[in-house]
């Protein structure tokens, strides 16, 4: 097989937050959440981003879709530098890049039923669809995440954690994205549900040719889904490579420490 096309290129990305401690005449060092990191994500593959809390992994994911402010660096989607686009100019890329969040309890609007949750992105990105076409799409979306069609009229509180995460995935799929940023998508779920959602994400990747940036703290889950793993610590990528080589021969002391802390049985 030929070399896969590079979908996303992150170059020297930094995200610094101003520190709010101290008085106004005191100069504060900014919090360097993400500090000069570079990586690429090939089309159709999964790049796993692991690290502990505060390592900057979620900030990295958010910076790509402009949920975090960019301090410096460039983000290329194929050839386009999307890092410099803002507002309306970024809109077409919001359709190509979607995000799935950790907490299925807080990321769905409790006042909307499933149909309106799934229709909203369609109304924005596919304004030409008629109401009946939209409904048809919503049914298809539920089917693709293996939920029954009659769930359309239900509200988020009626679902279990795993079902809500499926709805979150369906919403991300609604606009037919190419790249999905999965921010701790299975961390809040029970192990049996976690296994189902991981399998679903992998099935969808095969069917639809999706590309994932998979952010998680659980090394075993990241190993399961990733073609390449990036290990982050204190805003930096300390190690990158194939899952098998990172797990069997970790080079960086931080990766070694992380691996030795995982209880095995």
């Amino acid at each position, binding site marked *: 097989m030929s070399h896969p096309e590079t979908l996303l290129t992150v170059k020297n990305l930094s995200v610094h937050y101003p520190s709010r401690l101290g008085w106004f005449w005191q100069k504060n060092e900014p919090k360097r959440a993400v500090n000069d990191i570079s990586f690429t994500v090939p089309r159709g593959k999964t790049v796993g981003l692991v690290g502990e809390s505060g390592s900057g992994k979620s900030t990295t994911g958010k910076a790509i879709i402009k949920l975090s402010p960019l301090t410096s660096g460039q983000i290329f989607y194929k050839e386009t530098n999307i890092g410099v686009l803002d507002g309306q100019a970024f809109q077409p890329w919001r359709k190509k890049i979607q995000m799935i969040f950790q907490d299925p309890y807080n990321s769905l609007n409790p006042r909307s039923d499933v149909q309106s949750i799934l229709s909203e992105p369609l109304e924005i990105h596919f304004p030409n669809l008629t109401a009946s076409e939209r409904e048809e799409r919503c049914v298809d979306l539920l089917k693709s995440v293996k939920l029954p069609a009659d769930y359309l009229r239900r509200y988020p509180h009626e679902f279990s954690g795993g079902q809500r995460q499926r709805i979150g995935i369906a919403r991300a799929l609604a606009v037919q994205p190419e790249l999905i940023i999965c921010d701790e998508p299975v961390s809040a779920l029970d192990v049996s549900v976690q296994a189902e959602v991981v399998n679903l994400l992998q099935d969808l990747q095969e069917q639809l040719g999706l590309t994932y940036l998979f952010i998680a703290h659980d090394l075993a889950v990241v190993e399961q889904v990733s073609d390449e793993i990036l290990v982050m610590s204190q805003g930096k990528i300390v190690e990158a490579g194939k899952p098998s080589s990172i797990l069997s021969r970790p080079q960086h002391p931080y990766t070694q420490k992380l691996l030795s802390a995982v209880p095995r*049985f």
Partner: protein
Amino acid sequence: MTSEPLLHVENLSITFTSHDRRTSAVKSISFSVAKGEVLAVVGESGSGKSVSALSLTRLLPSPPLCQIQGNIFWCGKDLQKLSEDELTQIRGKEIAYIFQDPGTSLNPVYTIGYQIAEAVKIHEPTIKDTEAVVLQALQDVLIDDPRKVAQQYPHELSGGMQQRAMIAMALACNPRLLIADEPTTALDVTIQKEIIDLLKRLRQERKMSILLITHNFGIVAHFADRVQVMRQGEIVESGETSSVMQNPKHPYTRGLIACIPRLGQRRRRLTTLSEEMKA
């Protein structure tokens, strides 16, 4: 086996009532914890593992909201029959708790030292020098600078340090049983390892029993003497940790262990629970 278990629970049932709907959270379970033993209770959310631990010292809402049936024997005494005052002598003193989220279990407006001292004053009123006890308690959980931490407020500490402070508070009165309800679930793996190693050490030193509630089989394998697996309010399997982990008898236990992705054992697809095994 020792002659009399420290804690013995017989046919414990817990039912919640709200808006005329009755939910049976725990269905007639029996178990015991021996002196110096670590018993792990494993299960998924809603299996009843936390409520059964809370029910032991009446930490659940009172009837009619929540009804508890069955017997809970503590060193031969029936805890259900004790008055509130008598139970206070046991809760926090002989049976102490640590919870999943140290950030919400600590009181944000008092210093760590004040909160530990409070527990000591209630349970050991004869002790004059509570400060020494507080500093010793903080030292016991391997906090480097106990004097400084004692004067700090919960928000000034990291999650791992907060959980240490919680453990220090729980252990300040030398309990005989520590109930640890998902003590490391909210923590990073490296901190999780530190906390588990700390609990292992403290258990050795003090010969105390631990009731460990968790969903993480990895922790169970390295820490617990015995394990019991709960599902929908029932105990489906219990036994020595090594035999349950290596040779699970119940299909649910087998299924649950098979679901867990393991480091260095990448599979094409993860195993999932079959429909009838699901909660």
